[in-house]
């Protein structure tokens, strides 16, 4: 039987196990939307294409499945760019379908034409322009395969209108073969043996975990490794929820706003075991003084990540879970040596304990004014362990990372690499669509929230009960903090002078709005919000000039921190 391109697309989505897509219709995708009415694939209409892509991203991060977004050509397609770049930087599996003007018009500056293939080339793992309906099924198969395998990432498929209308016999390929794309999954055993030897020889090891642990769901293996070799664990923002913060071996986050003890441990370590992390500048600070005494083992599925920023003594290319499983097996064959580790590493743990005592994560509490850190702590206390937390980008994001103790993997969704303000609300929307019964919380600031606040409409329309926390200081707080510390308190364009009534804003959309202006109201507002059925905005009027500390100034060494006390 012959099918149209648009029907083939929807058939392919089903074969790939896609039951939920996010998108926004338009002239060049109108055929797809018409066929969508007869398809079991569910669609959520966001209020902006950027939000559709962030929602697909949040869906992917929370579930581990490939997120799917649809947008029309031209402005619809260009609106997806920030969402795609966000997913690309954080290696999130995603397929974005864009409409395109009919093939005979491509290149003619047609109405709503944009060269989205050219525009997204550097921010996608790969992209495809479909020029013949006969290629469509294979291209969709390839797109999903590329998106979810190796180091995952977004793939864009540009689908001209005439290809959607054209018909062909539908056959979905069982598998695809790409001669130029063969990711290495299996870690080299000899390298793994060397890693085990280095671990057993180390006196001051630190495990440094990135987003790769989340993408491969390697949290169980990670925990087992840490406990086996008794090594302290620090995570990046992306690795945040992969290792429970309350675990005695947890050092919390490292880097610019990491804990004092994590940064000191890394600086003084003699072996850094980097797992699915990429030595981002926000993590390393000044490269020349980063982990100066440490040998570095680097496990990553992407060879380009290895030796890109730092020297590496032992590279292992492979899937993190595969490598960890092999490493555990190798260590398991050396039980005598492993048994000695606890005793041998005692002085190291004592050293770390001193740093912990000297500078624990702390803030100055207040009885009169709401401290943002206090709100985060209360949120943790009153939410479920499987609650999914998303953030925007800025001070609130760092406070969430510092003061919310994540327990379960895939519960912290944040734009780490690109640092996209406006990510939190739509990604929460996507996560809630994936898990309608779980608590989903968007921790936000007043600045970033306004970048995609139109998605309140989507939440209300689809009954997605996301709980939104706005830590309102009427500032673009992170930039203000930099201006305070490094620009002599010249607050250029960082004061959000117009106070927004977020309670009324919530109500305008048919959501619930709550506000706390005093510390004693905080708990009540959170309890009320969690007891409310639909979406809620909780606005907290917080201490206006509170800073995120500790802080390693940009370009400084990790042990040159501005401390809280």
């Amino acid at each position, binding site marked *: 039987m012959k099918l149209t391109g648009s029907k083939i697309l929807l058939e392919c989505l089903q074969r790939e196990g896609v039951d939920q897509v996010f998108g926004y219709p338009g002239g060049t995708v109108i055929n797809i939307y018409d066929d969508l009415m007869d398809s079991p694939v569910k669609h959520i209409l966001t209020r902006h294409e950027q939000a559709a892509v962030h929602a697909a991203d949040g869906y992917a991060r929370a579930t581990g499945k490939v997120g799917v977004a649809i947008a029309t050509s031209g402005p619809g397609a260009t609106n997806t760019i920030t969402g795609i770049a966000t997913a690309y930087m954080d290696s999130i599996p995603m397929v974005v379908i864009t409409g395109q003007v009919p093939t005979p018009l491509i290149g003619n500056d047609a109405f709503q034409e944009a060269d989205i*293939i*050219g525009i997204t*080339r*550097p921010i996608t*793992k*790969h992209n495809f*322009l479909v020029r013949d309906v006969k290629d469509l099924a294979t291209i969709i198969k390839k797109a999903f395969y*590329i998106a979810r395998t190796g180091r995952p990432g977004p793939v864009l498929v540009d689908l001209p209108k005439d290809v959607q209308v054209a018909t062909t016999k539908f056959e979905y390929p069982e598998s695809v073969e*790409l*001669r*130029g*794309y063969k990711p290495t999954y299996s870690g080299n055993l000899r390298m793994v043996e060397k890693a085990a030897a280095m671990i057993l020889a180390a006196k001051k090891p630190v495990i440094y975990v990135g987003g790769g642990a989340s993408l491969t769901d390697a949290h169980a293996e990670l925990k087992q490794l840490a406990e086996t070799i008794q090594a302290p664990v620090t995570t990046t923002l992306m690795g945040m929820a992969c290792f429970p913060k309350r675990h005695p071996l947890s050092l919390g986050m490292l880097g610019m706003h990491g804990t004092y003890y994590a940064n000191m441990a890394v600086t003084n370590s003699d072996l850094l075991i980097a797992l699915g992390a990429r030595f981002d500048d926000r993590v390393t600070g000044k490269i020349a003084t980063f982990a100066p005494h440490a040998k570095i083992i680097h496990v990553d599925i*992407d*060879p*380009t990540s290895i*030796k*890109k920023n730092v020297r590496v003594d032992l590279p292992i290319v492979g899937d993190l879970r595969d490598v960890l499983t092999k490493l555990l097996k190798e260590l398991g064959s050396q039980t005598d040596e492993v048994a000695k580790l606890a005793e041998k590493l005692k002085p190291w743990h004592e050293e770390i304990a001193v740093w912990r005592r000297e500078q624990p994560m702390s803030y100055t509490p207040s009885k009169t004014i709401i401290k943002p850190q206090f709100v985060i702590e209360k949120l943790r206390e009153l939410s479920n362990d499987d609650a999914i937390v998303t953030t925007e980008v800025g001070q609130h994001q760092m406070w969430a990372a510092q003061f919310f103790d994540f327990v379960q993997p895939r519960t912290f969704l944040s734009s780490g690499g690109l640092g996209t303000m406006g990510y939190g609300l739509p990604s929460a929307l996507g996560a809630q669509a994936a898990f309608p019964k779980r608590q989903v919380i968007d921790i936000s600031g007043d600045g970033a929230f306004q970048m995609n606040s139109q998605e309140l409409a989507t939440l209300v329309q689809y009954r997605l009960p996301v709980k939104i926390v706005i830590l309102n200081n009427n500032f673009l707080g992170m930039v203000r903090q930099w201006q305070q510390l490094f620009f002599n308190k010249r607050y250029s364009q960082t004061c959000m002078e117009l106070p927004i009534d977020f309670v009324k804003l919530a109500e305008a959309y048919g959501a619930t709005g709550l506000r706390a202006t005093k510390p004693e109201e905080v708990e009540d507002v959170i309890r009320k919000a969690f007891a409310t059925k639909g979406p809620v905005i909780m606005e907290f009027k917080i201490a206006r000039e509170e800073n995120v500390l500790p802080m390693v100034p940009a370009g400084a060494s990790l042990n040159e921190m501005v401390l809280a006390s």
Partner: protein
Amino acid sequence: MRHTISVLVENEFGVLARVAGLFSGRGFNIESLSVAPTLDPSISRMTIVTSGDDRILEQINKQLNKLIDTIKVIDFTDEEHMERELCLVKVTADDGTRAEVLRIADIFRGKVVDVTPKSYTIEVTGAPDKINAIIELLRPMGIKELVRSGPVALGRGPKGWRAGD
């Protein structure tokens, strides 16, 4: 340090843009780039001359390999190989210089491919150094226009690379 790299890629539209974009986006140098289909028409071969230290070269190799359309990257840095470049050069040839231009072309085994009363166009092939040398000798005669193909390269010895090997 100068490096010559061959990249075998899928012969599809947009691949050149991917490779060129990778170099510009990551701040890598391209001194020259030449590209044409191979014996297997589904594969194109690019020869890229670039420069950088070992760390940069390692990144260039890895980043090229990471492109989905890249089938094989051959770095000739530590390999016995030959490089050849084609150059067409249009030189002023008046009564005083005509003979000298011909003599220089002859020394470099160049061919005159176009003649006018006022100019010769010479075709010469060779390693980039040889091309540089003839250009330097012809420069005083007055070069009107010049085009270089950029080098192409192949490893020495009996071994060859084909898709599927």
